[in-house]
């Protein structure tokens, strides 16, 4: 999936109708004219960045936050600006994230009309109790309706996000959610384990003992069930937490795992370009001010070094079920991977944790990927 000369582009929309209890992303419920002000500056940033970049864009991902909360017309304005300022390939893949209750027929039509062909909808769970724990502003019926809408305007590539290991979540909730999801015309599922992030209300509640996470065993059982059910229904697992029907893998995310270059625009957006990592400010006012003065709101730049590059390449490739392309790795870093990690490879193969075949090294037990990946870190 990696496009050697190309880059992918991420656009961040930091607005939501309500803040989820687990969310530590840069997102907030907007006041008054903040959306308009943001849009104006985002357009400016796209213009400034686009002028500097000569590489072709093969994928655009509009994420958040919740991009679908922007008023009608805003998304197509953004997409048009990108097409104007960047060298966007004709077969570009464009994805937008949406929430079940903020998308409507008009917006869906707008998205499709401006060239967006993939839509990712945050479901998390079909259970109202679980959705309440997460402070999600929708229910199952909203989701079902949203799918109906996007299908009706022509979208064929639809992702549903679901979440596992949530307080108050039981196996029967997961079974119910999965049954409902696979009955719908969905082509891609991202199934994440809940991560308790710092400074989130959910972490506070768990730490205070108000609510409890399911046990490790329960969570793994839920995940096992998800992997099993999806595979029986034609979804294959191509990354730790991503499942797709044939031909519907996420081009955008595959680029991340291939450690391809990407540019992020918008508040707090992250970029990796020409061996450099950098991120935009997460301060809304600073972001707007910088751009109004025709400066890029970049901060936290960090040059990659051969070790971090190697570690990242390994970490990302081993998340995928295809695994790490050894000869490509050796060529890129001038090392002999198998020789260098001979003992580790032997040990892990002996314990049935990895497979080495057809020039690829892949993890067999993806649940413990972190521990396995670390074995290959410098």
């Amino acid at each position, binding site marked *: 999936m990696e496009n050697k000369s190309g880059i992918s582009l991420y656009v961040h929309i930091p607005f939501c109708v309500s803040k989820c209890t687990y969310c530590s992303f840069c997102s907030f419920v907007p006041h008054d004219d903040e959306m308009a002000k943001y849009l104006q500056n985002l357009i400016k940033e796209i213009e400034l960045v686009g002028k500097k970049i000569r590489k072709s864009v093969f994928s655009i991902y509009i994420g958040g936050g919740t991009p679908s909360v922007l008023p009608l017309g805003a998304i197509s304005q953004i997409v048009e600006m990108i097409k104007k300022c960047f060298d966007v390939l004709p077969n570009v893949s464009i994805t937008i994230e949406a929430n079940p209750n903020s998308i409507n027929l008009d917006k869906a039509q707008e998205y499709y009309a401006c060239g967006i062909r993939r839509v990712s909808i945050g479901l998390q769970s079909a259970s109202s109790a679980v959705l309440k724990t997460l402070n999600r502003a929708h229910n199952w019926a909203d989701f079902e309706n949203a799918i109906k809408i996007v299908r009706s305007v022509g979208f064929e590539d639809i992702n549903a996000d679901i979440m596992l290991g949530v307080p108050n979540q039981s196996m029967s909730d997961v079974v119910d959610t999965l049954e409902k999801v696979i009955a719908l015309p969905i082509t891609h599922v991202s*199934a994440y384990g809940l991560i308790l992030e710092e400074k989130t209300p959910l972490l506070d509640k768990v730490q205070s003992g108000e609510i409890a996470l399911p046990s*490790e065993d329960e969570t793994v059982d839920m995940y096992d069930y998800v992997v099993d059910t999806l595979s029986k229904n034609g979804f294959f697992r191509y990354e730790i937490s991503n499942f797709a029907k044939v031909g519907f893998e996420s081009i955008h995310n595959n680029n991340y795992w291939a450690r391809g270059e990407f540019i992020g625009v918008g508040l707090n957006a992250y970029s990796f370009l020409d061996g450099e990592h950098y991120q935009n400010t997460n301060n809304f006012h600073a972001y707007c001010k910088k751009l109004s003065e025709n400066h890029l709101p970049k901060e936290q730049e*960090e040059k990659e070094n051969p070790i*971090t590059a190697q570690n*990242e390449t390994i970490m990302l490739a081993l998340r995928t079920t295809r695994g790490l392309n050894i000869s490509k790795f050796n060529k890129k870093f001038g090392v002999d991977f198998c020789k260098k990690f001979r003992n580790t490879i032997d040990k892990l193969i002996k*314990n049935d944790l990895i497979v080495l075949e057809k020039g690829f090294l892949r993890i067999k037990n993806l*649940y413990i990927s972190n521990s396995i990946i*670390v074995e290959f870190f410098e």
Partner: protein
Amino acid sequence: MRSRQDNIRNFCIVAHIDHGKSTLADRLLEATGTVAKRDLTEQLLDSMDLERERGITIKLTPTRMKYTFEGQEYILNLIDTPGHVDFTYEVSRSLAACEGAILIVDAGQGVEAQTLANVHLALDNNLEILPVINKIDLPSAEPEKVKQEIEDVIGIPAMHAPCISAKEGINILDVLEGIIREFPAPKGDETAPLKCLVFDSYYDNFKGAICLVRVFDGSVKKGDKIMFMQTGKQFEVTEVGYFVPKPQECSELLAGEVGYIAASIKKVSEAKVGDTITSAVVPAKEALPGYKQVQPVVFSGIFPVDGSKFGELKDALEKLKLNDSSLEYQAENSIALGFGFRCGFLGLLHMEIIQERLEREFNLDIITTAPSVNYHIYKTNGDMIEVSNPSNLPEPSLIARMEEPYVIMHIFTPPEYMGSIMELCTERRGENLDVDYLDEKRVRLDYSIPLNEIIYDFFDSLKSRTRGYASLDYELSEYKESKLVKLDILLKGEVCDALSLIVHQDKAYERGKIMAEKLKEVIPRQMFEVPIQAAVGGKIIARETVKAFRKDVLAKCYGGDITRKRKLLEKQKEGKKKMRSIGSVEVPSDAFVSILKID
């Protein structure tokens, strides 16, 4: 006419731990004006942090004090001594440099195990003994009773012993008077060829090895050519001096005096403790009686947690050895732990001190394997070999019989703890030799007990069973035949040599079971199941299992997550450095220590 030496007194202070030795030393420094009160940090002579923290004295420090008594100015040389049983050897070194010993006895606690041991050492060295009853300010003090006890138990006159409180500074001058009146003056021949006893040495980065000496005959000054009589090595003296208690250079050291000699000696091994220094120009005919080289009795492996730090560990041990000639070490290679050192110690405390110094002063993370003693293995072919490392034990079929070292142990305790102590000693294969009721409050128990039974946690067990009221001392006695076996621990089917132990066969099952249980507690869950087995001669006697963990990741990883995630994993990798891989199993470095605690 009074000679110069008539006004010199060389003495040391001996006591059971905590009876107030260092405090009295401080008071003497203060009373003689050697150190002004405002400069006196508590227990000045204990210079290592470790010494002050643990309330023990490890190294010797000789201090010169001046004191005027009845119109005469006296030079009083105090040679401080370590109090703990492990350092008996160092005590005897300092005794050899003295004519007298102050014996401190706690007015509340009376004669204790180490009181007795130290008095015997002093008597063996023909020292005059001045008993001093300390802590008379405490409500529990019974000085008259303690005096009687000294006479009864030790057999030395004590009725005129000064009764003092070192802490409160009460009657300190009585002690000074006692020193001058009771202790004989040195009687060296100033005109005879030089004879100095090296009773300690330490390494100074600028001056080289510094010898702490007692001059018996002759004199020594800067520029003199000297010779070590044992090694035959010759040096030119660059500096002589004494301690007040900081080093103070002087023009000359004369017969009867105590001080230091520096002579650009590169290695401490060239300035052997116990050797006699004489003049290279006019050598003495014969050396002073030295003392026998100490033999380590407790052995254990020390390995760097991070295998690449072997060189640093080696340097650190070399530096420690410079100031601690009793430390022995040689390189060893463990299958489980890689390269490290087999070290010999005077006892358990000595071992702990070395470990702590390696960690604190050299900032090293180390793994220490279970302490062992030196076994005598008689092979079927008639050879006898000494084995202190369980890995070196020959195949059982090659062993005709084995012997292990025994000690004679003396325990002093209030009678109410007798039952509990006897139970403990019996559990540890001890044989009761004698029970002696010293008075209605104290009993002395004598045991013959295998050394290997007291090197793990005997002190801790004794302390907890007697709420700290019992005291203990021991001396090596003999080797006795014993049914010993090698207990192996297998992790995921592989023997971990660093965890092997030599134990009595009757103890193997229990010990194996406890070790497996302990290991289960300390080994974290890993990517795969880890069976822990204890085995004797290939037969599994205990088994536990550490289950595999099931997940460590289900989160997403896009865009900005990548760097963050990579850094997190790099941190995880860093954390793993605190672990040692044994086969494919990761074992935290403190596991090796924690499994030693059996009670």
